[in-house]
């Protein structure tokens, strides 16, 4: 149901654009929408797992910044971007895993621990460089130029494809593995999940590792997308990611939602932004206000749903 609501909202906004502006309903605009929002959506996919498990990860934006800077620095040392990207992605998974282990073992609130991680990663960015560093390797340019043409003049870029592939992998993980089932179980009711024999510690480590992995992958996508590393890159993207997850119909309290919803949540944000740039008269702050209003709408709707189920559960 919430997923359907998200898709309806997305279609409505997109339809509004199509009616109001020429060229909005074209594969060109849609292809660009996918490309421009690829890295945010990749990060949001990781955040979806963390939120489904009942946690939160604030370190995503800094992770993207750090990965882009580190890749640029390694590029200067002659590393192939694919190799440095691989290194970064495994670093992200490890970093996330350590966070998950600390959260579970030391009983620290995810909010505050990932906040500290956010500072740490952003701090590492500044230690590496204070300026924007270019990534000059020809592979990066080739990657951004490579695209599948779509009928109607549009194109599907490589980063959009990476995003769609990570989404497919995430859907398989979330809905068709025991790990995914355990994430939903822990987010739904941690205590019951424990009594039912789900491995809590292992799953928590895996969830945050996955969040870190997707965060780092988003960083790689960002680095390829911009062809540079910048220590202030992607500041606040963790909020965009969380907003995409919530707009995608996932309950912030955990246990309910679809990974696919996050794609539409991210696309809603992207479409609103595109609409506003298309218009030219509207100004950028409307993005934030509209997204805030949508968040309010979704959260209060979710609240009434969870309330009614909570009542069902209370023994008479």
């Amino acid at each position, binding site marked *: 149901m919430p997923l359907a609501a998200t898709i309806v909202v997305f279609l409505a906004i997109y339809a509004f654009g199509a009616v109001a502006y020429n060229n909005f309903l074209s594969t060109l605009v849609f292809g660009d929408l996918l490309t421009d929002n690829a890295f945010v959506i990749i990060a949001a996919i990781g955040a979806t797992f963390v939120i489904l498990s009942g946690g939160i990860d604030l370190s995503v934006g800094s992770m993207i910044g750090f990965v882009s800077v580190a890749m640029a620095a390694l590029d200067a040392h002659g590393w192939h971007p694919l190799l440095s990207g691989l290194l970064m992605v495994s670093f992200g998974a490890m970093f996330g895993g350590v966070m998950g282990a600390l959260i579970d073992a030391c009983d620290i609130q995810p909010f505050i621990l990932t906040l500290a991680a956010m500072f740490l990663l952003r701090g590492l960015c500044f230690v590496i460089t204070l300026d924007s560093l270019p990534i000059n390797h020809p592979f990066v340019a080739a990657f951004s130029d490579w695209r599948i043409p779509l009928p109607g003049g549009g194109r599907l870029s490589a980063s959009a494809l990476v995003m769609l592939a990570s989404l497919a992998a995430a859907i398989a993980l979330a809905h068709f593995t025991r790990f995914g089932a355990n994430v939903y179980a822990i987010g739904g009711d941690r205590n019951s999940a424990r009594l039912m024999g789900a491995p809590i510690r292992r799953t928590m480590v895996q969830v945050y590792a996955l969040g870190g992995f997707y965060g780092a992958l988003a960083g790689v996508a960002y680095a390829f997308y911009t062809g540079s590393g910048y220590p202030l890159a992607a500041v606040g993207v963790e909020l965009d990611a969380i907003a995409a997850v919530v707009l995608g119909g996932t309950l912030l309290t955990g246990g309910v939602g679809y990974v696919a919803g996050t794609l539409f949540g991210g696309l809603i944000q992207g479409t609103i932004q595109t609409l506003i740039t298309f218009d030219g008269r509207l100004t950028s702050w409307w*993005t934030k206000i509209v997204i805030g209003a949508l968040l309010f709408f979704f959260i209060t709707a979710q*609240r009434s749903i969870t309330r009614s189920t909570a009542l069902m559960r209370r023994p008479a």
Partner: protein
Amino acid sequence: MKIELPTSAAPALARRSAVAPKIFEWRAFWPLLALGLILLVDAFISPGFFSIRLVEGRLYGSLIDILYRGAPTAVVALGMAVVIGARGIDLSVGAVIAIAGAVMTELIHGGMSAPAVLLATLFVSLICGLWNGVLVAFLDIQPIIATLILMVAGRGVAQMIDAGTIVTFRSEFFSAISTGRLGPIPSRIVVAAAVYALTWAAMRRTALGLFVESVGANAEASRLTGIDSKFVTVATYLISGVAAGIAGILITSDIRGSDANNAGLWMELDAILAVVLGGGSLNGGRVYIFNTLIGVLIIQSLTTSILVSGLPPEYNLIVKAIVVFFCLLLQARPVRQAVGGMMWAKRP
């Protein structure tokens, strides 16, 4: 009716742990120790760190600088300490700072008198707090989520008021509040001290503090003891909103303009951090006013120390993150129990 009861059984006084020194039980001990250590390091790396000079009737020096720069954070953190005490959290303070700045700038341009602008700005931040409070107390939305809405939308609202540009202004009154001085003391330090005194009075000289802590410790038991927990919850967000408004006025007056994108950016994180570093638990139950102030000073003196140490400023965040990790681990219950267990084991 006076109840006089005989003491039928002598109170079997629980034995006090043998030699547990009282000072370790003092709440402010650990935060103060951390602050002391940072300042001690400063004393070594920068000999003139503790010197305070009077230049043109105003005090200068690293210590004054710490207080000066920490003032807006301190104001926000005090409000945050109250919210956290009632088991809430307010992520929107940064956005409220931006809104307050935008409203204030707009009103100054509208030709309103400075004191009226001040009151109107505080009123708007009160409304922001009310919005958060209503979402949390009456719609029963988790505080993190409820305040996230204003955190996201608030900056947009501020930009809308500013019409997307950085609007500047000139105002003797507001400059005096933020960057001026009262006697030899920078006036924003006086403002922060006044906010501290007010918070202290509200928490310790009315029963509100007790009610806030009671709701934070156990909301259901508070209801059964007759506390109107919805009212108390809303009150905490009102306090936090107004505190953010005051900080917004200080910051905006400082740069003499409203920068809706950057005013108070990440201030909520510093404020929450200050509360946690001061020993406050995000699980509520206690409002530590003095300790929160120390938390702010720890954060600010870290920043200042890195500046005076000659270490490049880019190390600022990383040092901060490491200190925070350390403090979090020290506060974590399992770690404390393990460490405590080791310490007791040594005693015969």
